[in-house]
């Protein structure tokens, strides 16, 4: 019996559990990494190579954008899909502004209650006190962003540019990917980035560079079936990916052991460093791709462990990524304020890490519950 022709993920029915799982995991990692000096952040991916949770989050965002909107476009036309995308962009924008206000209010509260005005300065909110009208104006333009509020603006810009490209992604995925890589290379070479506020600052995540991760995800959602038969033949790709991951983890390990670090010759170190995050260094990008390739081989969409009850909270968080992302960013500041009172206490780091993840999970469950209720009501 011959299997039916493979269906691209964007047409396949049902939900790919991997997307929720890894997006949830990325959200957990982002939270843990945002608590300073956090011992628990040892489990996050950034310690074992070049890339971190941001790549995972942006990649899956691109992948799910195609899955969510291409079906709509094919069924109800481009205009309807584009309108829905812009409604989503609007939701992201509202979420970002709400997060900005809540974030600022929390810091204002903490600094008034504890009489520590320097907290405002610490969180890059000083612009707000010096020139509030200008700062609010710049915040509305996404140019003024306190510390750690950089990911949503990137996502907003990426998704806002997405509708005109959606039909092209379905029809000429490889051309879109080529164009995306071209823009990435040009931005790297010509130092393109969007301006930020205050003057002379640029976006922490350069959209012209980071778009390549988003469109890699988007294109893969279309061309995935074309890759499947190549898995066995592409032993070399797998071997290269494994070798590269080992190389990256060796470099990462060398940051912890000077005896290993001394083994790295100067000419090699000169090629490696610096590993720029703002402009997505090619080493980071390749590291993410190698990781994605291996994960794709190891974790099939129906992998059993994805359904293990202990991973359920992670998947729930991934299903409500926008709410949980905002909540995580907000809680990371709370954690920071709490931990800063017990600077070197490992117990406080572990407690706020766990508490944050528990709160994020509870809210994700509540969101699912509300959604289910709304569906029953409708």
């Amino acid at each position: 019996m011959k299997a039916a022709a493979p269906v691209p993920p964007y047409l396949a029915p049902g939900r790919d559990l991997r997307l929720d799982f890894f997006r949830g995991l990325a959200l957990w990692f982002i939270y843990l990494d945002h608590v300073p000096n956090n011992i628990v952040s040892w489990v996050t991916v950034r310690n074992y190579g070049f890339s971190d949770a941001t790549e995972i989050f942006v990649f899956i965002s691109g992948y799910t954008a195609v899955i969510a909107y291409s079906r709509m476009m094919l069924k109800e036309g481009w205009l309807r899909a584009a309108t829905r995308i812009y409604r989503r962009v609007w939701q992201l924008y509202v979420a970002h502004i709400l997060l900005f206000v809540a974030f600022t209010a929390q810091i204002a509260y903490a600094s008034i209650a504890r009489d520590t005005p320097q907290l405002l300065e610490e969180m890059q909110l000083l612009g707000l006190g010096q020139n509030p009208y200008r700062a609010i104006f710049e915040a509305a333009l996404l140019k003024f962003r306190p510390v750690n509020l950089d990911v949503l603006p990137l996502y907003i810009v990426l998704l806002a540019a997405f509708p005109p490209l959606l039909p092209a992604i379905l029809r000429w995925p490889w051309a879109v990917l080529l164009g995306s890589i071209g823009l990435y290379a040009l931005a790297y070479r010509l130092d393109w980035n969007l301006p930020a506020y205050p003057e002379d600052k640029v976006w922490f995540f350069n959209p012209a560079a980071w778009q390549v991760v988003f469109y890699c995800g988007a294109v893969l959602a279309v061309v995935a079936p074309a890759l499947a038969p190549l898995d066995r033949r592409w032993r070399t790709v797998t071997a290269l990916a494994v070798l590269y991951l080992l190389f990256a983890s060796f470099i990462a390990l060398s940051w912890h052991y000077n005896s290993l670090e001394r083994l790295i010759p100067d000419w090699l170190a000169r090629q490696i460093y610096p590993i720029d995050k703002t402009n997505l260094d090619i080493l980071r990008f390749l590291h993410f791709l190698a990781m994605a390739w291996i994960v794709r081989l190891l974790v099939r969409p129906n992998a059993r462990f994805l359904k293990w009850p202990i991973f359920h909270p992670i998947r729930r968080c991934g299903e409500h990524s926008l709410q949980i992302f905002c909540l995580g960013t907000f809680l990371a500041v709370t954690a920071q304020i709490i931990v800063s009172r017990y600077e070197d206490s490992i117990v406080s780091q572990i407690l706020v890490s766990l508490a944050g993840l528990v709160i994020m999970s509870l809210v994700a469950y509540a969101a699912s519950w509300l959604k289910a209720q709304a569906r029953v009501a409708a």
Partner: protein
Amino acid sequence: MSRWTFAAAVGAVALWSTGAGAEMQCRASRELLELGNPLAIARAAVAEERELRIVAMGSSSTQGYGATNPKYSYPAQLKMKLEAAMPGIQIHVWNKGIGGQDAEEMVARMSKDVKPEHAHIVVWQVGTNSAIRRDPLTKFADRLRAGIDIGHSLGANFVMMNLQYVPAVVALPDEEEYARVMAEVAKEKNAGLFRRFEIMRSWYNDGMPYAQFVTNDGLHLNDFGQKCIGKLLSMSILDAVNPRRLTGAANTSK
């Protein structure tokens, strides 16, 4: 995705975190903290005006790129440490760090950024971006002279802060030449020199791993690195400005 993958992951975490367990203290030897300049203007300001005004001029290190929180940037730390050490003295520190700038770009804004603050000290963190861009050494030296002249004409003392000792800088073929030129120009122009490169190298040679003080881009200081540099810089400045109040042994815990 099976048991062995899980076991490998656990093993990796164990291996990595063992390396992290051995966190070392923030320190530097006394000679390395010597600025080689009395900072006379700053000392007079502290004694007579009960005030110290510092402009931190520099690039990403000064701006605090790489720290999880701007309060860990060395200028913010410098302010906190000086305030704690000199109660009753008004301490102002203006952060004028702009990421990516080299000596030339900073000279261009030196007057604009220093003048309005009436600085007693300009801490000028410079050299790394010039070294990465391979600026000719003579041109680099001329820029430094020009910048210091501008600051001096505005009535400020200088503390030059040289390159950071991090993988991206150490890999350069001639990073020590830039550090050498900075030391020469500082001496010639009667400026203080905060030997960040040598201080951080001593950390490394004492066995402190890069992961403790550098972010994983291999270029920028992380929270620990920023805090420690801020603390050591405050000790250097205190020694010059307020010699009666010796900061004690330089080897102190964080």
